[in-house]
């Protein structure tokens, strides 16, 4: 039995139209993404002339520096309209994973690669790109003054040993304030995060009990509290729930106008979190930093400052935020020479010109010695053995 199908005229017309539309779309898309021969760029001072065709840089990682990196992407695109930088703030752990899997052009993290990750990602260059502080936010309705807390008290709260706001340990630090007789609602991160890493680093330094029972990491076994996703989630939750306490990056607290606590540092001073007190912390820590191509697993501003009685004026919960790239960019699948060049140019710009966008967004600009360190590191970057920056 032969089945004879009679084709309708309209079917032909629709089919031809579809083919024509598909064809034009294909041609259009391909024409605008021509791959050209790359040109070397020589860096004089800080700027470089990139190639003229559309280049997309993909980065992923920490949520903490996202507002700053987002600004950098926008500003850099204004300077070089053909370069688009796409940054996904999926968290430091995600950034590290992406770097290890080589699924992004550059990865960002608040925590440096640990020893295990360092051996897995041979040839990584570590670039500290900005500095920030983790502040303790709280929601005490009706309280206008700033609360004063110490590391010991904060760790006891997060261990679940201090349960009420009017506990004598908190009250003794805040003599002029009547604290309410309410339970403290503890908020922490439910996702893995560099912010958690810095915060638990600090708690491990100031509390032996915390160090032995919980420890530090991007994700820990929290003794108490509720989990929220991202810095944004913790901010939202603390703003929503009265009598709650949480920890977020300084930027988020400032942007959302949430009250944050003053911390008593190891020198016994009451320190207000601010770009100045973060910078002071970096000064004490930046004296000895490894080279860009070495392991930064043991670098921690918190470690240098949290128990250091001589660190005057320093806010202890401060940390670098890093970007990782591979020394030889050709090992990243999908990275061609033009993209590699654009990446290196972008990072050079970010280390120099990009720093002026830091303070208005409540980040701390890199001190001069760290900028020099990054310059040396960027000079090491190659594409298949050919250096991308020629001085």
């Amino acid at each position, binding site marked *: 039995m032969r089945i004879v199908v009679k084709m309708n005229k309209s079917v032909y017309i629709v089919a031809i139209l579809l083919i024509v539309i598909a064809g034009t779309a294909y041609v259009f898309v391909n024409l605008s993404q021509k791959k050209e021969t790359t040109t070397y760029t020589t860096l004089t001072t800080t700027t470089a002339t990139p190639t003229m065709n559309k280049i997309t840089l993909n980065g992923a990682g920490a949520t903490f520096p996202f507002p700053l990196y987002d600004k950098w992407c926008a500003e850099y695109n204004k300077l070089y309209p053909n370069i688009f930088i796409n940054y996904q703030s999926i968290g430091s*752990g995600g950034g590290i994973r992406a770097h290890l899997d080589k699924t992004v052009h550059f990865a960002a993290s608040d925590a440096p690669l640990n020893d295990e990750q360092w051996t897995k990602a041979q040839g990584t260059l570590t670039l500290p790109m900005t500095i920030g502080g983790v502040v303790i936010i709280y929601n005490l309705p009706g309280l206008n003054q700033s609360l004063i807390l110490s590391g010991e008290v904060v760790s006891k709260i997060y261990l679940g040993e201090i349960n009420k706001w009017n506990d004598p340990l908190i009250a003794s630090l805040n003599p002029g304030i009547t604290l309410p007789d309410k339970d403290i609602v503890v908020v922490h991160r*439910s996702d*893995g995060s560099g912010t958690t890493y810095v915060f638990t680093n600090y708690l491990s330094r100031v509390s032996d009990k915390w160090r032995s029972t919980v*420890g530090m*990491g991007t*994700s820990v*076994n929290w003794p108490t509290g509720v989990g929220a*996703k991202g810095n944004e989630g913790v901010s939202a939750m603390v703003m*929503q729930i009265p009598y709650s306490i949480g920890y977020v990056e300084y930027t988020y607290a400032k942007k959302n106008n949430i009250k944050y606590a003053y911390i008593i540092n190891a020198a016994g001073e009451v320190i207000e979190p601010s770009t100045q007190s973060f910078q002071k912390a970096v000064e004490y820590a930046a004296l000895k930093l490894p080279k860009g191509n070495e392991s930064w697993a043991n670098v921690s501003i918190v470690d240098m400052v949290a128990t250091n009685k001589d660190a005057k004026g320093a806010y202890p919960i401060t940390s670098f935020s890093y970007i990782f790239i591979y020394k030889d960019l050709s090992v990243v699948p999908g990275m061609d020479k033009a993209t590699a060049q654009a990446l290196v140019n972008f990072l050079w710009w970010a280390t120099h010109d990009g720093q002026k966008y830091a303070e208005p967004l409540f980040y701390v600009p890199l001190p001069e010695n760290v900028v020099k360190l990054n310059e040396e590191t960027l000079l090491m970057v190659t594409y298949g053995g050919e250096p991308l920056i020629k001085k």
Partner: protein
Amino acid sequence: MFGDKIFKYITAFFAFFIVISFLMLIYELYKGSYLAISKFGLSFIKNTVWDPVNGVFGALPLIIGTIVVSLLSLLFSLPISIGVALVLVLYLPRKISRGLAVLIETMAGVPSVIYGLWGLYVLAPFLRENVYSVLQSTLGFIPLFSGPNYGIGFLTGSIVLALMITPIITAVTKDLLQAVPISIKEATVSLGATKKELALIMIKYIKPGLFAASLLGLGRAIGETMAISMVIGNKFKLFPSSFFDTWYTLSAIIANEFLEATYDLYISSLVYIGLLLLVVTLAVIITARIIIWRFSKVRGEI
């Protein structure tokens, strides 16, 4: 003849393709979780510690949390869904009923993130200020009703889930009610039944179908990830200490921690949780299928 054979093989291929895809899914899950299975074995299901710093993982609190929250949401949702379906079929004029049905089906299509955001920013504060606080002040002497009042928690999570599965169950129930043979309805009414009695008889008639509809809803509730992770509080504990406490589910922990899992055992443990989630879902579905099958046999139907 020849054309028929080709048709048969093509459709058979597509049918097998689904089965093969599913088997491949199970295989990938097994491969991904192999490290965790070899390290923890079945004790993973009994362990109650989740410590990424020290590499100790266990899933029991999550399994209990998932089951309890899903069943609770079904408990909240069923009366509402059946009620709405009855109203749509028996009480409302046809035109309004059709419009309302479209609205309900649209609700089913709303992305779960929207429910999560609404739950976090609207429902949770509302419940905290107006419902939980009242319950706490009146019934606070019972331990189950005391404790911190967050607003978010497993109860709020169950309510949000109930809202999410109601449209599905309502739609299916409505279709079932409309499919009740007119002979049954006429017979009931001719015996002098009131509308309420008619409704009860129709419900009894569609019982197996109702079971299947609840299953659909339960399946969605078990797998729900985004909305629940925003509202449940993400607290890894074996049992909540009160009705207003926070908790955790299998899907929420994967959503929260998968991207950040930086070492192999961590990732593998999360894939193991995915495997457990699949097992739980399958167990629920298979149990319900068996019950429906036996119920149908008892009633003398196919």
